């Protein structure tokens, strides 16, 4: 029988999820709006003192972006489980882990990328020196996909339970911590003129590991969730 190749299937999956995200543009705007509001509120709460804002800017932007991502995380597989699309994916003659990897990629493109695009704006608002912004972006480019991948595994694990949002947040928190520490460490080091490559390399290593393992774990967890 003539089955479509892996490339065709993956491209179709990516296109499908991006098209679905585009049809619900309002949902994409929500995390962005949230990040803008939170980052704007900090100077009001702490006072417009340049040195203070400069010192916390990197951390505030990082935490804001990661929290904004959490808002959209539990929707990653929810609609596919609800309407039975996931069953069809599981039964399709394509490797489930790869299809889920494409879903995670689409989710990252739809939720994290807009946040990364506005991150320099938020950082500039908090007086982060211009020279540090590229390091912040690099840290975000590595930390956000890591969070998407780890989050996807947890979303898949909690897929069978109702009101999984709370549980998800609790489980994700400890996993976020290393990502935040390394990303913020890189930004802080760059700000002090110290070498910042080591924490970035740690993030990259964790990302590589997650790219390989997370889709496999997601596939296994979702198969178990359906097998009940």
């Amino acid at each position, binding site marked *: *029988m*003539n089955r479509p190749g892996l490339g065709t299937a993956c491209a179709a999956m990516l296109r499908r999820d991006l098209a679905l995200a585009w049809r619900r543009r309002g949902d994409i705007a929500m995390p962005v709006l949230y990040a803008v509001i939170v980052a704007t509120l900090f100077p009001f709460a702490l006072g417009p003192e340049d040195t203070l804002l400069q010192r916390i800017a990197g951390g505030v932007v990082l935490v804001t972006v990661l929290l904004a991502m959490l808002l959209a995380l539990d929707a990653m597989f929810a*609609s596919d489980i609800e*309407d039975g*699309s996931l069953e*069809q994916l599981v*039964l399709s003659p394509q490797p489930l882990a790869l299809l889920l990897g494409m879903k995670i990629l689409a989710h990252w493109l739809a939720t994290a990328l807009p946040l990364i695009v506005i991150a320099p704006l938020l950082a500039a608002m908090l007086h982060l020196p211009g020279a540090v912004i590229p390091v912040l972006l690099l840290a975000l480019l590595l930390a956000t996909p890591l969070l998407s991948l780890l989050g996807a595994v947890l979303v898949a694990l909690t897929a069978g339970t109702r009101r999984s949002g709370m549980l998800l947040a609790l489980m994700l928190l400890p996993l976020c911590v290393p990502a935040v520490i390394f990303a913020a460490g890189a930004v802080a080091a760059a700000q002090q003129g110290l070498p910042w490559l080591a924490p970035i390399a740690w993030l990259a290593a964790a990302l590589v590991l997650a790219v390989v393992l997370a889709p496999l774990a997601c596939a296994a967890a979702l198969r178990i969730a359906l097998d009940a």
Partner: protein
Amino acid sequence: MTATPAAAPLLEARGLSFRRQDEPVFAPLDFRLHAGELALVEGDNGSGKTTLLRMLAGLLHVGEGELRWRGAPLQRDATAGDILFLGHQLGLKADFSPRENLRVAASLHGCREGANAASVLARIGLRGYEDEPVRRLSAGQKKRAALARLLLLPATLWLLDEPYANLDRIGIALVNELLEGHTDAGGAAMVTSHGTVSFHGGEPRRIRMHD
């Protein structure tokens, strides 16, 4: 390829049963389904019809007993895509049109030779609704949009859970036609239904579910 005897049934179940929390969902079942055959799964509500179909599709693990595919123990990797399952949840994206839904399915499963989305949707009675988002279709039209997958995707065994639900008289006749065409072409199908179903041609095999 190992040579399989011509008489080997497409799907064979031996002492098949399923337990949920140590409660048997249905009593051990034995049946054989040959190519070109249609089996009607009968039983009361809660007798395990859906469970049986989900198990045959590969969504549920096989509890006890054995499943054989073309005479050899069933391997999910080998049969993926050869078995098409249509459950209560239709697997349609509400934001997509029937045409887009079919395109996604076809890019994962492939297409039957000579079949395309437009002709399939016309055959299934959705002419004029090809590009309407599924969310705006009626329940019966949604069912038809899901049934269109059967015509477009290449598969040998159809597992249809309540394919007649929500369909009008013409739709029910259409499902019967599809089943007849499929079995005539050497495919097989298992169908669950509460209602009385009359097939043209031969009487279907009946699999009775007992608690």
